[in-house]
């Protein structure tokens, strides 16, 4: 047993083979390429290619100004952000195809990519609709016919803003304003792809809708933009998966996701991301919950070089509920900076945050939470739990909870714990014949066990497998 996170060649080979599931890419074949670096020309190029309406072009250009005016948030976040060189990134790469409704119409390499990632197979097995994005644009988008008949809209953002402006525009950028942070401004300037979903009043979509975001090109930035609106009493679950091959240079993923749950509606947004360790993953996600509505973020962050993500819920109507359930695994050389933002803006609103992080080797896990309950409200409740598990002495974990409660008619509860996979626990498990790597992965799976059950079945199996792979790589 060694405290050092060294990997022998045999283990390394075993992991490499398994990693191959996501670690491959095809030669680039782009008809449209905005080139390297960012300027108003880049934005105009994107607007031209996408044939944006004027209001969208204006929105992008204004957002670019905001992006330039905002400093990198290194006053509170990691200095590693300064290693993102905006001038070296390519902001738009596409082959000029519209999203296909049938997999057989999708270009061969793109189809093969998604087949290797298992997307068409999952669609047949348990999904109500799928969107598959390849670099900047959606390659495939399809929703079950009966849902289309019921009035469900599931398209990419480009189609959403053009074909459904009357629903799209009133909410676009309203939950997350352009200037929310530097990266939401960047996304607003160059966004492409992502989903637009509308679920009509009272419709409860039984099966999940899924989006898969795939980066194929080096030095590339993926900036999808998602807006999901569940009308009164509607219910939907949306799942997102993400991968990228491992390139030498850095890749940027900076999405903006806005959810709007109207009166009594319920939206669950599930993420299982498994980025390779060269990806900066800087994502802004927030939901707006009206009266009696519920927004749940179920989030699992594995991989990436740096992830900064704090899903939030603004509880705008009485009795609205917000929830963030998150798992973060920071392996060697990775920093998972995650958390939750709960803004109570009406009486009797309830929020719940359960965060579990695992840091391995040199991995670093940071929790940042913000809960705001203003003075004029009554009957609000928040529960926050954050637990950290450290594996070996080099790991680092920090917790920055900020719970601001004004007035005295509220209930808040905060618990935090830091634990370790102790030497005695490992000795015990190994004495039963279980290898060190398997023992680690059992301990980690045990730590997050109660949260894994919150994920849909198909994802919880995948999650356990991903964690096993990560743990195999972290012990000698």
């Amino acid at each position, binding site marked *: *047993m060694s405290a050092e996170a060294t990997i022998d060649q045999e283990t390394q080979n075993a992991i490499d083979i398994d990693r191959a599931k996501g670690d491959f890419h095809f030669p680039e074949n782009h008809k449209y390429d905005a080139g390297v670096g960012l300027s108003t020309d880049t934005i105009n190029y994107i607007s031209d290619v996408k044939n944006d309406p004027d209001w969208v072009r204006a929105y992008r250009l204004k957002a670019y100004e905001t992006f330039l005016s905002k400093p990198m948030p290194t006053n509170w976040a990691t200095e590693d952000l300064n290693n993102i060189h905006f001038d070296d990134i390519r902001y738009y790469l596409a082959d000029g195809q519209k999203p296909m409704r049938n997999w057989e119409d999708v270009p061969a390499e793109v189809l093969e990519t998604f087949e290797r990632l298992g997307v068409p197979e999952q669609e047949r097995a348990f999904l109500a609709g799928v969107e598959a994005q390849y670099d900047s644009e959606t390659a495939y988008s399809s929703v079950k016919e009966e849902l289309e008949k019921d009035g469900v809209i599931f398209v990419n953002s480009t189609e959403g803003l053009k074909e459904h402006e009357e629903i799209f525009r009133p909410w676009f950028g309203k939950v997350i304003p352009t200037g929310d942070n530097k990266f939401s401004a960047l996304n607003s300037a160059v966004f492409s792809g992502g989903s637009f979903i509308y679920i009509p009043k009272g419709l409860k979509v039984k099966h999940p809708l899924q989006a898969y975001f795939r980066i194929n090109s080096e030095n590339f930035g993926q900036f999808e933009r998602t807006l999901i609106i569940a009308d009164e009493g509607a219910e939907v679950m949306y799942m997102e998966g993400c991968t990228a091959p491992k390139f030498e240079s850095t890749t940027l993923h900076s999405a903006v996701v806005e959810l709007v749950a109207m009166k009594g509606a319920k939206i669950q947004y599930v993420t299982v991301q498994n980025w390779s360790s060269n990806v900066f993953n800087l994502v802004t996600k927030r939901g707006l919950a009206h009266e009696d509505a519920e927004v749940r973020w179920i989030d699992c962050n594995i991989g990436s070089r740096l992830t900064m993500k704090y899903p939030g819920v603004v509880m705008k109507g009485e009795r609205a509920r917000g929830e963030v359930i998150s798992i973060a695994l920071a392996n060697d050389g990775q920093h998972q900076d995650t958390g939750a933002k709960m803004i109570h803006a009406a009486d009797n609103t309830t929020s719940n945050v359960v965060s579990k992080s695992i840091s391995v080797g040199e991995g670093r896990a940071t929790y940042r939470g913000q809960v705001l309950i203003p003075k004029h409200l009554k009957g609000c409740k928040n529960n926050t739990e954050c637990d950290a598990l450290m594996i070996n002495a080099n790991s680092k974990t920090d917790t920055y909870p900020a719970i601001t409660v004004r007035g005295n008619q509220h209930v808040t509860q905060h618990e935090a714990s830091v*634990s370790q996979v*102790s*030497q*005695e*626990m490992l*000795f*015990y*498990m*190994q*004495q*039963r*014949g*279980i*290898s*060190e790597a*398997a*023992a680690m992965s*059992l*301990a980690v*799976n*045990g*730590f*997050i*066990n*109660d949260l894994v059950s919150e994920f849909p079945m198909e994802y919880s199996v995948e999650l356990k497998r991903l964690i096993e792979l990560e743990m195999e790589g972290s012990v000698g």
Partner: protein
Amino acid sequence: MSLVIKDLHANVEDTPILKGVNLEIPKGEVHAIMGPNGSGKSTLSKVVAGHEDYEVTSGSVSLDGEDILELDVDERSRAGIFLAFQYPAEVPGVSNANFIRAALQARLPKGEEIDAVAYYKDLYSKMDVLEMNRKFTARAVNEGFSGGEKKRNEILQMMMLDPQYCILDETDSGLDIDALKIVAKGVNAMRSPDRGILMITHYQRLLDYIEPDYVHVMADGQIVKTGGKELALELEESGYDFLKDGGLVNA
């Protein structure tokens, strides 16, 4: 066929704890080691299992002729050594059923899977011997267990893993008489010509229920006296005072 410990010396942080232990446990026999606190009994069990806090400075431990001191903890386990812990560790969030299953899975060749139906059938029948509630399978390993439950769990794992050599470290401590009888029933069910058992205990009480073939007395890191089961009764009556007067301890 036996577990042979020869002139074993081991340190913890440069302090010698074992100072030349010699012991042979042939298959088919039950041995007991008794001795005062601090004599090195528990250390011996951990050194044989391969705990990394203990440094073996000389001597050997061999299993049916194969030296095992170079093996990792899990390899020694799979080679046939089982240690029932005095203080079993908790494994939060991992159910007993999954834990034992993982241990059995670790013994299969790569690509082979445990048959779940047969596994549960086996597990339940062994739990019945130990009078354990079925709900136990879903509980996390040792988490919130009473002392008696932990010890029964150790015996259950031992029965499931079917080891060639069992070392029971103070299995009787913290047990009331009823629990002790149940645990003893489990251990006695494990007695077999194909298995060697070593019990480490402070009290003679356990030996009323699991009758040993041999009793050894350990003091200051060595086996200082060996006899039949009657030796345990002598110790019960006159204690370990003879160690001080009799000059059995190496000067």
